[in-house]
């Protein structure tokens, strides 16, 4: 047996002191799990009160009508107006007179959407050159 073994054996023979009485008293029972303790008296009182309040509110509050499922409706109106026509040339073809005219058109697009209070109006101006028969009405 070497010196270390002898000393270690002597150390092991020292028994740690027992738990003091006050500590032993505190440790009679294991700790209660957190969050699993018995409900307090306050909780027993609060639950029926909360239920009663909910029922009372149910009587006095106006019934809520569930909104109809939102359905988006889009209306679109298009309109083209001839605002100007200018004759550029008149030619005879097979005993018929034809006129080359330059026309000015205004196109208006109006869009209305049910999901938005805003109306969108789009106006564009375009020029066209067209051949048309000359009429003498």
């Amino acid at each position, binding site marked *: 047996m070497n010196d270390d073994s002898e*000393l270690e054996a002597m150390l092991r023979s020292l028994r*740690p*002191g027992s738990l003091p009485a006050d*500590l032993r008293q505190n440790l009679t029972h*294991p700790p209660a799990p957190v969050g699993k303790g018995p409900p307090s008296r306050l909780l027993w009182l609060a639950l029926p009160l909360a239920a009663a309040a909910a029922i009372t509110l149910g009587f006095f509050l106006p019934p809520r009508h569930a909104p109809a499922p939102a359905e988006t409706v889009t209306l679109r109106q298009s309109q083209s107006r001839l605002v100007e026509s200018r004759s550029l040339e008149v030619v005879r073809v097979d005993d018929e007179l034809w006129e080359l005219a330059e026309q000015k058109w205004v196109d208006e697009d109006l869009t209305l959407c049910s999901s938005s209070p805003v109306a969108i109006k789009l106006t564009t101006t375009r020029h066209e050159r067209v051949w048309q028969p000359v009429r003498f009405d």
Partner: protein
Amino acid sequence: MEDSPPTAESRLWQAWLSEHGEWFLLYARQQTRSEADAKDVFQEALFDAWRRASGAIPDKALVLATIRRRAIDLGRSADRRVRRENDFGGARTPWFVTDFDAGDTRDFLATAVRDLPENLREVLILRIWGEMSFPEIASLTGAPVPTATSRYRYALERLRESLAELQP
């Protein structure tokens, strides 16, 4: 009021306390500088470890680590320092069971253990009474395994020197 019969958990708790309680308290005592702090740390650590284990026997290392952490937190607290100083003025609570038949050597050895430097004493207690391996001690204390081993050797050496003073 009549006590209710102990539950299975309560019996498990008592068995665990009987088996390990004394040396857990010894470790708490060596980690703190007053008996009051040791009791606080010990009780809080045991409750904490038991809750964490969710009904199973807590791991020994977990309890020791909790004691260690709480003792460090306590040591940083200013009001606890005052309490320690007050406590230090009183009689020292013995860490080991006094055996009057065993002679002076055991009492001398118990005192010598207590008077070891804290880092040496911690390793000695974990090794002798905790029956922990050096890797386990290293893991708990945060010291490398060779450091833990050499601290243990230094502790034994110091104790041997102290005992030599007793020889005629």
